[in-house]
Structure formats: C-alpha cells, structure tokens
C-alpha cells in the first residue's frame, strides 16, 4: 500500500526531504506509519512525537487506519505565542 508523506518545518529539515513515499502493509495505522518514519529517518525520531498527523486535510489520531494512496502530513507544533 502506497502512502505519500509530506513533511514541514523542522520535520522537513530533520528528514532532509519535504515529501516521500512509503510502502505500508494493508491495515496499517498512523501509529505504524510513525514507527516506519522513525526507522527510516533516525534524526526525526525524537521530534516526531511532538508532531500531529493529518490524512489529506483532516487531523487524525494514531489509531486511524491509513487509506491506500493517502497523503499523510507531518505537522510540527505551530508557532503560537507572543507576537
């Protein structure tokens, strides 16, 4: 099953790419996709737990099944705070 992954901000810098394709087994969850990303990009492993994931344009929790041909976005915490 093919999944397209988009990476942003520090996650992109740590992975060294803004987009990549992963093959995951059918029935894989976002939790498993996180694990696979951490394996492929060890520099990303520590930061990944602070990121949210979205499938297409919808935020999703780690138990969500990854649909085939999904685009999964890795979203670091937003800047927030004082201006």
């Amino acid at each position: 099953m093919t999944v397209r992954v988009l990476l942003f901000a520090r996650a992109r810098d740590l992975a060294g790419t803004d987009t990549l394709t992963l093959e995951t087994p059918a029935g894989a969850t976002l939790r498993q996709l996180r694990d696979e990303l951490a394996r492929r990009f060890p520099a990303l492993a520590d930061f990944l737990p602070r990121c949210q994931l979205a499938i297409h344009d919808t935020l999703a929790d780690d138990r969500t099944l990854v649909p085939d041909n999904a685009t999964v976005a890795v979203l670091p915490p937003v800047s927030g705070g004082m201006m």
Partner: protein
Amino acid sequence: MIRLQREPIDYGTLVESVRRTTAGAVVLFLGTVRELTDGRVTVALEYEAYDRLAEKQLAAIEQEIRSRWQVTDVAMVHRLGRLEPGEISVAVVVSSPHRQDAFLAARHAIERIKQVVPIWKKEHWSDGSSEWIHPQEPIADPLHLPQS
C-alpha cells in the same frame, strides 16, 4: 475572505473588502515582523504552511467567530515565504454593526490562527544561524477545531 499568499499583504484592499454601510465598526489587526526578540536581531522570518489544511482551519475560524459574534464580513490573510523586519505577516479584519463584536471577533481570530493553523516560522538571526520556532511544550493546544 481567506488567503495564503507570497505577495505583500495589501491591508487597504482587505479593509475595503469588509466595509459595508450596515457595519459601523471595522477592526484590523496586523502582525508584523519584529526586529528584536529577547535581545536577538532577526534579519528575516520564513513562513511555511500546509496550505490545504491551513485554508480549512482558517475557514473553521471564520465559522467560529461568525457563530459567536455579529460579524458582517471578515478577511484573514497570512503571508508565506521570506519576510524582513517590518513586513506584515498576517492580517485579520472584521466588520460588524457593533464595535465590541468587531474587537472580540478580530482578537479571537488572531489567537486561533496562532493556535490551530499549520503555518510555521523560521527565524534567521543576524549571527547567521536559523531555527524553526516550535513551542517546546508537548502539544497543549491541538490543531483541532470544534466542528460548527
């Protein structure tokens, strides 16, 4: 009106777009790039977005403020790309028949933009270093917006 853009923000056009003879109050908020942060000098900020989700979240914020206050019209624009100190990074403008509503809705919109819209900024410091600004705490305020 909601927009992410790489061109400079023309707030005059935004203000005019929300003005109505039925709305006696208009409040505009502009966020601009500061030159100094805790004594460090910024030479540029770089803004990056996950466009499709950012636009969806902005639309949800619009629904949120329309459900809570009397909002005649609203425009929210965030700039992307590299900005220098003094440039406008974000503009929110709300028109309303009542000034209290215009102030509260504009204030709420910019607070929510900072919390729930996937737009990130990278500081480029005068010493040549740069860093993405991500709050260090675990995600206290998730990107979820209540569905209206």
